[in-house]
């Protein structure tokens, strides 16, 4: 296997990590919807915390994306 092909496969494998961010976001927003439907008056406060959690979880998926981009374009 030559180096270019190995890089492509490696970049593809690195993107598996994004699945974790997907699961995390699904869990985050499902509990957000659950919480807000049980207590709609808490929505503004819970939404702020959800957005903070969203940004932190999304960053985890983006770390995997950065690894893939580094494999494809930098090395």
């Amino acid at each position: 296997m030559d180096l270019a092909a190995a890089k492509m496969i490696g970049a593809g494998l690195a993107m598996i990590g994004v699945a974790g961010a997907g699961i995390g976001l699904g869990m985050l927003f499902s509990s957000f919807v659950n919480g807000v439907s049980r207590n709609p008056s808490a929505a503004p406060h819970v939404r702020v915390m959800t957005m903070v959690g969203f940004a932190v979880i999304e960053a985890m998926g983006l770390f995997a994306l950065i690894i893939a981009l580094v494999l494809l374009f930098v090395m």
Partner: protein
Amino acid sequence: MSGPLHQFEVKPLINTPMTIGGYDFYFTNSSLFMVLAVLVSVLFVRFGMRSKSLIPGRMQSMVELTHDMVANLMKENIGDEGKKYFPFIFTLFIFVLFGNLLGMVPYGFTFTSHIIVTFALAFFIFVTVTIIAFVKHGTHFFRFFLPEGIPFYIIPIFVPIEIISYFTRPISLSVRLFANMLAGHTLIKVMAIFTISMGALGILPLLFNTLMIGFEIFVAVLQAYIFTLLSCLYLNDAVHMH
């Protein structure tokens, strides 16, 4: 056609470098947008607050809302001791916010999509926070890595983990902002290339891109907020030891 990563290219605008101490300093498009971010934020605050009326107008209430947002964030996370660090945190928020938002202007350049810029900001915060902690608590600061009341048999695992997590703070803080900006702008450019190459069907990626632009503006504000929030949390750790 230039690729999706072409937009992040740093190129000098003035080809004659300033030589300071044997190093060549170029005025690049990145530095131009940093100067623009500072100018726009100074104009935003000065122009908004020029009337200083009791009942704020549109511009003044925008400035006041931004100020109150950061002030509330600091009050909730640090408390009253945090008040003297307000100018630092507010400057940080405004600079990152306008850096992100200027990148959303067509033909704009996002300087926060470069790891060296965000790392410099995050490393500066890390050093400042560590110095504040040392000045406030002296050598008692080292108790930060060994909280009271933990069982003695997990100390060999706990202390290295705490030390590593403390020193990876600037990395995670900078990579979070940089990766969000890089990924968002790359996605928009990839979709723009699809629009050109798909012909009549190109309307579909164009519609998606329209939504993405709105989402990216939301992410730009959110990431500036997260950057400020995490700086506040680190400052809180320094001011009140846990």
